[in-house]
């Protein structure tokens, strides 16, 4: 089983890594989800014992490792939080920039920066010193 778990987790991770590099933000998020799923699977697979559910009394059978289960639960919950945040970023990007293509976003950003630099606000050090004097 060790080999099977390793193979499965590695496959999911590999697909996730590929997705993270794609150009489409939704697929990037999907890649992050896959990577975290793979991590949870590894945590569960690393349990020292495998057997009955760790709910007392377990009878004769040895219970599964409860510690990794608690950790896996934590990982799942944090995965949920991260996914929600990533999706919110995706929604915000789409609403403001009308695109989810990473390359387009980078290009827009570059153009935007150029625009800002043209209409640069005054530098800090140029700020009139009397301004501080002027404050009430």
């Amino acid at each position: 089983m060790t080999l099977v778990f390793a193979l499965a987790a590695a496959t999911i991770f590999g697909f996730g890594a590929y997705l993270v590099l794609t150009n489409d933000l939704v697929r990037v998020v999907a890649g992050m989800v896959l990577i975290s799923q793979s991590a949870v699977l590894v945590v569960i697979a690393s349990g020292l014992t495998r057997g009955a559910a760790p709910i007392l009394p377990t009878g004769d059978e040895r219970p599964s490792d409860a510690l990794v289960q608690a950790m896996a639960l934590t990982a799942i919950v944090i995965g949920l939080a991260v996914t929600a945040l990533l999706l919110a970023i995706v929604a915000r990007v789409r609403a403001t920039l009308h695109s989810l293509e990473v390359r387009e976003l980078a290009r827009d950003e570059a153009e935007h920066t150029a625009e800002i630099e043209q209409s640069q606000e005054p530098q800090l050090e140029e700020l009139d010193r009397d301004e501080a004097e002027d404050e009430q």
Partner: protein
Amino acid sequence: MTILTEAVARLLLAPSLMVAAAILIKGYVDVGDGFAAAVVVSLAIALQYLAFGARRAEQELPVLRFAPQTAIVGLLVALSSGFFAVISGGAPFTHEPSVGARVVRIGRLELMTAVSFDFGIFLLIAGALVALIHHLAEPPELEPDLEEDAEAAR
């Protein structure tokens, strides 16, 4: 959505909240905990959103409005349960009454800080997830200047 989904959604709300309550209360002796119960609650709410749409769901269940407050109360409950032991000189996040001491019971539910901690987690996660559903149910709000851009884009 069809009348059927609306009817089903309406019918399922109470039972799913029941299930959540069961998972929460039985959490210490059986499968499930505050977190699982909270996710069940949020799923039940999500079903209402799906069936009725965000606006109607929030009209029919005005209590949803208090989701952020619920989350904050949950956080406070969890924190105060966690630090309760500090008052009597224990380390934080140890349960109180301490090992071996008598525990007050209501039926089979034992009242101790670990249980109220779990309850705090339940409130926090339920409130947070419902707020999340609410926010994701509508398209994001645009900032004024960006709205102009959006106009131009159209």
